[in-house]
């Protein structure tokens, strides 16, 4: 891979005696879509938090566009073109979805322009009818969309999605996967790191995968190959694949 957008090199993140990440490495090309899967507590969100700057790795190195960002302040990610969503939704309850989304746009000073961009993208994602509603009053799936819209408004080069399909119905998941896939096809310059439990969902968007378990990389590579690996199946099922 020449000139990768993101390089995660032997990153460890410890919380006291617990290693949430233990020597994790990852390389991501510009415009690529990479899935990170694994059971609960495997370190998926910790990895995203390290890349986004919410956590500082205990050891290891993270580079973005060739520059080391291992200990960069969290807010600097947006300036560099990194945007993210959150596993536990982070929308201000006292602001409408449109106002929440208005946090997204970069380098847009005019309020009316910010508002228009937010409104247009909410409409593009099919939730224009909820633009003036407050997060606690709208369906969960709509809140998830609002978070993605806010992140997309930052026009990121690297989009970090933390369990965007969690809590959605099968129908909403399918719709979501289709929209994300269409977005990624249309915006070829934006790389995506997608953290999810639902492997089928991830495979609809990402061609490569990393499987984490207890903070360790079990396997990384092409999605089909990774999912055929008995060690991966074992880490998901907790038993040998041919036990039954």
């Amino acid at each position, binding site marked *: 891979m020449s000139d990768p957008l993101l390089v995660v090199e032997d990153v460890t993140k410890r919380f006291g005696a617990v290693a949430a990440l233990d020597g994790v490495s990852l390389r991501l090309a510009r415009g690529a879509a990479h899935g990170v899967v694994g059971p609960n507590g495997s370190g998926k969100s910790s990895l995203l938090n390290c890349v986004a700057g*919410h956590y500082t790795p205990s050891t290891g190195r993270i580079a973005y566009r060739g520059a080391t960002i291992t200990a960069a302040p*969290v*807010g600097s*990610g947006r300036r560099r073109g990194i945007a993210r969503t959150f596993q536990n939704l*982070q929308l*201000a309850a006292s602001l409408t979805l449109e106002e929440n989304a208005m*946090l*997204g746009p970069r380098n847009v000073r005019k*309020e009316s322009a910010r508002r228009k961009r937010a409104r247009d993208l909410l409409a593009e994602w099919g939730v224009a009818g909820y633009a*003036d509603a407050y997060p606690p009053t709208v369906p969960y799936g709509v809140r998830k969309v609002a978070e993605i819209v806010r992140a997309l408004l930052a026009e990121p080069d690297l989009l970090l999605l933390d369990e965007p399909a969690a809590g959605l119905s099968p129908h909403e998941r399918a719709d979501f996967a289709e929209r994300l896939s269409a977005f990624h096809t249309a915006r070829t310059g934006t790389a995506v790191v997608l953290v999810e439990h639902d492997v089928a969902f991830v495979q609809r968007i990402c061609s490569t995968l990393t499987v984490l378990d207890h903070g360790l990389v079990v396997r990384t590579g092409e999605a089909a190959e990774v999912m055929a690996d008995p060690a991966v199946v074992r880490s998901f099922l907790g038993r040998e694949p041919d036990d039954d």
Partner: protein
Amino acid sequence: MSATAAARRRLFTSRTAVLLAALALAPLAAELGGGPYIGYAFALGTAFALSVLGNNLIVGYLGEANLAGGAFLAVGAYASAIALAHGLPLWLAGLIGIAAGAVIGALLSIPAARVHGHQLALATLGLAWAAPDVIRYAEAWTGGSDGMYVPTSGGIPAGLGGLADTYVVTGIFVVCALLVLVALRGRAGRLLLTHAEAGPAARGFGVRAWAVAMLAWGACGALGGLSGVLYGHIVGYLSPDEFTFQVSLFIFVGSMVGGARSVPGAWIGGLLAGAVPQLLSDIPGGGSILTFGVVLAAVVALARIGLYPSLELLGARLRPARKEAADE
């Protein structure tokens, strides 16, 4: 656009007009209906409303407890009085009072960016507690325990009260309330609320927590300082005994009772914090505090989200009923 969101975005509505009319008539009604003492208490309450307005930025928007309102009030009152005593004009002395409050507020934002909840409440409590002793200690400037008279300036005598003074104080409150409303309905309000309610997202999208805290605490201090400038002018005499912890508590209670996110609620809270204790002070013994406590308990029990928001909610509930009655 939903009616609620649209109404929240509009600044000048029929309700704003009613509130402005009430503010325009209230000083006259207080003076004519209750006499000069009621007018004096009204002016004092409206001056306190500026402190409550500032306190609302912290309590209602940052979601923290501020028990230093009395300290900001004291800083503004003494800074402007000392400036007047040194022969500076009233407008400049007023600006110095506001700036002094803003500086103390901004300084308080430094620990406020690191500690939260009850720890921050205790830090602000410490400031409120220390204020009277600091005033006594700085005797050469403040007159110590003996206090100091607020000098007259530019022919405007301090401590006179009266209808004109009440209108000046009310006018200043209206201007500040509109400024705060405009700021909160724009980008500053959005950043404050995102910082308070979705902190990780705010940080992730480049909102600097320290800048938001400094803005809110600085504005709170500035409004508290202005409140103190007006307080000094209305009362005409400053003493450390006037700026005890109880004053900070009254301002905090004013926020909670009026409605911590409500600008009109700040006025109601200010009247409660500044005027009601004055009016109740004629009750002998400990009766005034007891009565104040009973009134507060009743208000909190009946209007948990604050008096003004409760009135708004009641109005919203009655409106469809009235419409249905009209349709029939």
